[in-house]
């Protein structure tokens, strides 16, 4: 009996007494959520976002975390690009993991489905990829949804400006995927070309997995299109290029960034030569200080040898800048409370030197997109490499 009570008291002493000093040191971490597709066809996008977040988190933790010594911690969930799953994950991250903010992935459908959850649970959301216009312009006040990525509306303005001012073309043929994403870009392109008094000579659509795009291209060609504006993902984009080569039609092609996910270069080979598309950031060409740092981290942590090896670069760049902005807001709010962080994001003080640009009050109550077409870059496939295009 006595030995039992001795052991018991030792256990009690260890359990209660020993961790004293250690517990005092380690403050509760601040958790950041990520809901993205990290498996399946868009897995590369989820992985890229994860890398961007992790690099920024390590950087912030190395200099002492936020709120006087609280470390940042990442909680990743796979939404598989499925809106229902996205909604479940959103609740789980907030209610169980108690995250301070959540980052989002590639799928506009998931992001849209999650909007009501962020509003209800008063948790700030930072989009790192999905470009759907009404994700951020969702009609909610106060709006908990922010984004450091492209916005279809700005993308369409950017693409039309490129066609008119740089290519000096005036007869666009639109080739769009037959989905809500294609539809939203038809609206945007029609609007922005229209502002310049230009009407598309043809609007053609294709379905996912369509084997041959020559009828659509023929219609555009016969309608007199002098360039093609493409809204497609990598597999369909590749089929478009194949059919175009078959017709022997050498016309300029400018594209939304969908073709940059997936394995466009592998699928198209030489055909990708000269295809221009938009990015929010490119690791090719001269890099600013942050760019050099992120490249160094990608090299050290993820074995990336050169910019060409970076998978889905925009995901990493957007997420990296987005995390810094969220951390800044937490710091300036002096709290991880969702309502306070949300309010602070809209009124961020000072300048933040980011990767994509220097952010100076990136968000306002009316503007929840930190990036606009002023910040996008145009790139072109040249000899199997992505090269920035001069917009002047």
């Amino acid at each position: 009996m006595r030995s039992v009570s001795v052991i018991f008291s030792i256990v009690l002493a260890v359990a209660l007494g020993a961790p004293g000093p250690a517990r005092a040191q380690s403050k509760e971490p601040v958790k950041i959520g990520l809901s993205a597709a990290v498996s399946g066809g868009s897995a590369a996008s989820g992985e890229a976002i994860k890398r961007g977040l992790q690099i920024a988190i390590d950087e912030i933790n190395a200099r002492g975390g936020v709120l006087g010594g609280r470390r940042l911690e990442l909680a990743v969930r796979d939404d598989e690009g499925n809106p229902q799953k996205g909604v479940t994950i959103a609740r789980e991250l907030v209610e169980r993991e108690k995250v301070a903010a959540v980052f989002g992935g590639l799928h506009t459908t998931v992001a849209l489905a999650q909007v009501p959850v962020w509003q209800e649970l008063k948790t700030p959301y930072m989009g790192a990829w999905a470009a759907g216009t009404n994700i951020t312009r969702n009609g909610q006040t106060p709006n908990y949804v922010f984004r450091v990525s492209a916005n279809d509306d700005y993308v369409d303005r950017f693409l039309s400006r490129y066609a008119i001012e740089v290519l000096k073309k005036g007869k666009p043929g639109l080739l769009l995927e037959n989905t809500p994403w294609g539809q939203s870009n038809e609206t945007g392109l029609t609007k922005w070309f229209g502002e310049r008094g230009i009407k598309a000579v043809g609007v053609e659509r294709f379905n996912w997995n369509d084997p041959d795009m020559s009828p659509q291209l023929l219609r555009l060609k016969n309608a007199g299109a002098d360039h093609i504006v493409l809204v497609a993902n990598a597999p369909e984009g590749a089929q478009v290029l194949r059919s175009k080569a078959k017709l022997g039609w050498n016309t300029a092609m400018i594209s939304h960034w969908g073709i940059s996910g997936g394995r466009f270069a592998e699928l198209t080979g030489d055909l990708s030569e000269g295809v221009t598309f938009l990015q929010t950031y490119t690791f090719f060409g001269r890099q600013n200080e942050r760019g050099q740092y992120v490249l160094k981290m990608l090299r050290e942590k993820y074995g990336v040898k050169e910019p060409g090896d970076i998978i889905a670069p925009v995901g990493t760049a957007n997420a990296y800048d987005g995390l810094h902005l969220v951390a800044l807001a937490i710091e300036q709010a002096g709290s991880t409370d969702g309502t306070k962080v949300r309010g602070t994001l809209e009124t961020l003080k000072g300048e933040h030197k980011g990767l994509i640009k220097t952010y100076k009050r990136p968000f306002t109550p009316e503007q929840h997109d930190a990036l606009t077409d002023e910040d996008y870059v145009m790139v072109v496939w040249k000899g199997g490499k992505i090269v920035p295009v001069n917009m002047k």
Partner: protein
Amino acid sequence: MYVQLVVTGLALGSMYGLVALGYHITWATSRTMNFSQGHAVMAGAVVAYTVFVALGWPFPLALVITLAALACYGTFVERIAVRPFFLRASPAWLLATIAVGIIAENVAQLTFGKDARAFPSPLMHKPIIVGSAGFYPQELLVPVIGLTLMGLVQLFYHRTSYGKQLKAVAWNPEAAGLMGINIPRAVMTSYALSAILAGVAGVLLAPLLNVAPQMGTIIGLKAFAVAIIGGLTSAPGIVIAGLGYGLVEAFTAGYISTRAREIVGFALVILVLVVRPWGLLGEKPSRRV
């Protein structure tokens, strides 16, 4: 413009016809079919990709392995999704084969990944452009091999004794059984043959469509429409219907709109089902008294 549309339509149509022959082979023997024939085509492309591209083995060897693997796949489909129901004369094989196809697609997603991959072919490097129309040499290969296979299937069912035995099973299973034909084996053989054909289609179409778990779904569905139009009991009917269907698709997309393509195509299926349910060249079933 119409020259290119004819070329495109014939290229598409021969793909449909080739895949649709797979429905004919099992139908001719057992009056059942693998509804997921398109998924079998995908399986063929995925296996070929794995052996030829990922492992880098020589193409002839990759082809042999692919066809052997597909024969096993066909046997497997018959064994678990058709035979249990065929013996009870239950039409549940319909759903069971769809289920197997969905499982195959998901297994491919897990093992192969969802990204479309390129299947290299020397016949895809440069399109041949004649006048105002162009095509890839690979597209020419599809009808050539499709017609050859159609001829072989015809010869098999009409000229060989084993082929005739298989057909007999469809006409009257009881009598065929009494004549000493091993019915389960006959059905299994037809499924293996059908899957081998899907394997050939998979290898042939992979460079054109790229390899992806979802590549077979649409083509399988359209091939089914073609099989219905041409007549499930007639290989030549299916090939002709395939070419016709491809032309209708290309011309609808070219002169009306891409959005009208599926409407016109499947409306044709309904029309044929109403007017001539046994298909263009199918055998009109004799009325049972």
